[in-house]
């Protein structure tokens, strides 16, 4: 249906799919604003952070810092994948996508092992708002990374079948926009939750 419509329309500057993903990011931003807002209310409302009852529990700043670098790197590789398809380099697109996906999985793996460690140390959902908002906020981001990874592997599969070319790469484009959003969000959360 959408294609039939282009017969009478001038070509809009942004295609429907790209525009829709950008609009979706507006909603995602507000979802995270709500959770970050809640985090800030707790953070500002407590004189000592973490609250006195949590002394001895430390968030793994260094490991997460390295993990942050991994995720930022995946943003770069995703950008390279996007450039590759613009130049019609389908083979390079595939390898950049694969690297990006592996980096994404690596990020999730490191974070998962951190969580296991933290739970062993006694930081759980039930340990006051400190533990609660940590798991909900970081977990919400992790869910988004997971979604982005699944999306990316779908795009990867389509790239293998040869669905993209320099003229047709909306699938890569929309996935890149979403990936960049998820990557760009993380440093904000890292600074807020781990460093402040």
């Amino acid at each position, binding site marked *: *249906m*959408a294609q*039939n*419509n282009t*017969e*009478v*329309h*001038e070509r*809009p500057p*942004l*295609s*429907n799919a790209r*525009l*829709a993903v950008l*609009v*979706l990011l*507006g*909603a*995602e931003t*507000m*979802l*995270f*604003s*709500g*959770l970050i*807002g*809640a985090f800030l*209310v*707790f953070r500002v*409302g*407590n004189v000592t952070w*973490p*609250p*006195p*009852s*949590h002394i001895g529990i430390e968030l793994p700043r260094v490991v997460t810092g390295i993990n942050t670098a991994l995720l930022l790197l995946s943003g770069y590789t995703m950008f390279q994948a996007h450039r590759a398809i613009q130049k019609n380099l389908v083979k390079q697109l595939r390898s950049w996508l694969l690297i990006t996906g592996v980096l994404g999985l690596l990020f999730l793996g490191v974070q998962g092992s951190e969580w296991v460690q933290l739970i062993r140390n006694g930081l759980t*959902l*039930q*340990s*006051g*708002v*400190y*533990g*609660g*908002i940590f798991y*909900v906020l970081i977990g*919400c981001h992790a869910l988004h990374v997971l979604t982005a990874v699944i999306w990316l592997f779908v795009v990867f599969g389509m790239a293998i079948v040869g669905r993209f070319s320099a003229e047709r790469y909306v699938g890569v484009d929309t996935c890149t926009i979403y990936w960049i959003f998820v990557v760009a969000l993380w440093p904000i959360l890292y600074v807020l939750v781990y460093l402040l």
Partner: protein
Amino acid sequence: MHDNEHTSHHEESFIRKYIFSLDHKTIGKQFLIYGLIMFFLGGGLALLFRWQLAYPDKPLPIIGASTEYMEEGEVVTGADRMWERIYESEKEEWLEVNMPNGVVDPAFYNMLFTMHATVMVFFVVVPILVGAFGNFLIPLMIGTRDMAFPILNMLSFWFAVLAAVIMTIGFFVPGGHAAAGWTGYAPLSSDAQWTGVEWGQILWGLSLFVQGLSSLVGSINYITTIINMRAPGMTFFRLPLVIWSLFIVAILLLLAFPVLSSAIVLLVFDRLAGTTFFTPTAEGGGDPLLWQHLFWFFGHPEVYILILPGMGIASELIAVFSRKPIFGYRSMVYAMIAIAFLGWIVWGHHMFQSGMRPGLGSVFMTTTMLIAVPSAIKTFNWLGTMFRGSIRFTTPMLHGIAFVSMFVIGGLSGIYMANTPVDIFIHDTYYIVAHIHYVVFGGSLFAIFGGIVFWFPKMYGRYMNDTLSKIHFWLTFIAFNCTFFPMHILGVGGHMRRISNPMQYEFLQGFEGMNIFITMSAFTLGFTQLILVFNFFWSIYRGKVAEQNPWHVNTLEWEAPTPVPHGNFVQIPTVYRGPYEYSVPDEEEDWIPQARPEHAPATSGD
């Protein structure tokens, strides 16, 4: 060249055509019928608690008819036999728990008003205004064949159905449905010990979360469609005002609902995972005020989501039936944008009494007062449109005029509540109940009724029966005012809302007569709506067949053949002018359709 493909009627199976349809018009109609069904659920709940308010602790008619059977278990009359049958079934326990001997139990009363508001806001007004009118009108009025993403559109409807199913299940779980008010204030909502509600509150949250997904998908679709798929020549400032309102509302829904979703996530974690986001505890607990901030940060834009499409519909009705260009088209658009923007920075006016820092109250008071300016611009523009017009008092126009007048009353009472010192007195009284109903019932619902009668010929190819429509209008208008106007007086008299038995308070006993009057009016109002539903379904099959453009309207939806085929237009129209060129001097007819090509002096919107 693809045109024939669309207009030729390729037969689809019943399921593809009416149930899992991808056609925006069918999805719009599905939302309309969905909203009307939920309207009766929400209204029924209201009538139950209105009975309790007028006749506290007296058995309900019909439900409590046979006290004989309920008390003694003896079968004496026909009514006893009926109740015997019902009580033998599995419903027995449910009725006995919630309405022992047919009397509304206080806990049940809490559930009733909570669910009345939840159903009306999330399952009636938004689905009808945004879901039904948005889906039906947007592609037709901007001149395109369908929405940008038909499959997402279908998903949006089925998410809404899923949400309604989850919400309905909540009535039948042990512990009853959510009873913390539609605002779900924590800690009342976050811990079962305060209300005794276990699963009801959780299902309430899950249902709203799913409804949020439905809104999200819908608004992405609306925004993309309106930006990218307008017909040639349809510039933004040639869009009909109802499309402008739906565009702005889609943006509000897109940005506001995720905030509620985030709050619901925290609430459900509090309920299920033992977190303490909304409960202060010794080892670093949370803050109950956080819920109110998050809820109202969503909630106040939601209020404008409820009213803006109504304003859009009323603008169409008033311009068409005054046979005049809308007064100040651009100022109407800018006023809506201003209302939508200001809606984000006023949420604190719901919280003057919450223990929030008092200094903040005056900030929120000021921003709230500012909203009166764009609202007044709109009101005066409507009056300016009608002024010296050749008004045709058709049923849709009556609804349009009712919208404006009721909205003015609701808006004026809002100014009182925006004042912190006044609000301290009338907060949480029936004054606020009167206010919200003047805006959402008197405003949005009259716009919905008017819109249904107005676009019915395009939706179903037939007119609704005009006599029945007029009877419905006048009865609704009178009963509505009799129901809600006295509530202002109750509120100023100190009558608290959300109490199940006003007769327990000595200073409220004098209001007994007024409460009975309100209840009588409310029942009249409720039963009047049966006329609308009968008329609606009767007219789908038996109404007078309508021509293509029965009201002589300029906008593009009336260019499409009636009934509108799959793909809408025989040929995509080209737009040459703004939507409100009525009674242009030196023209033969008093209307010039947007798609009419001859050169004529342009007036509004260009």
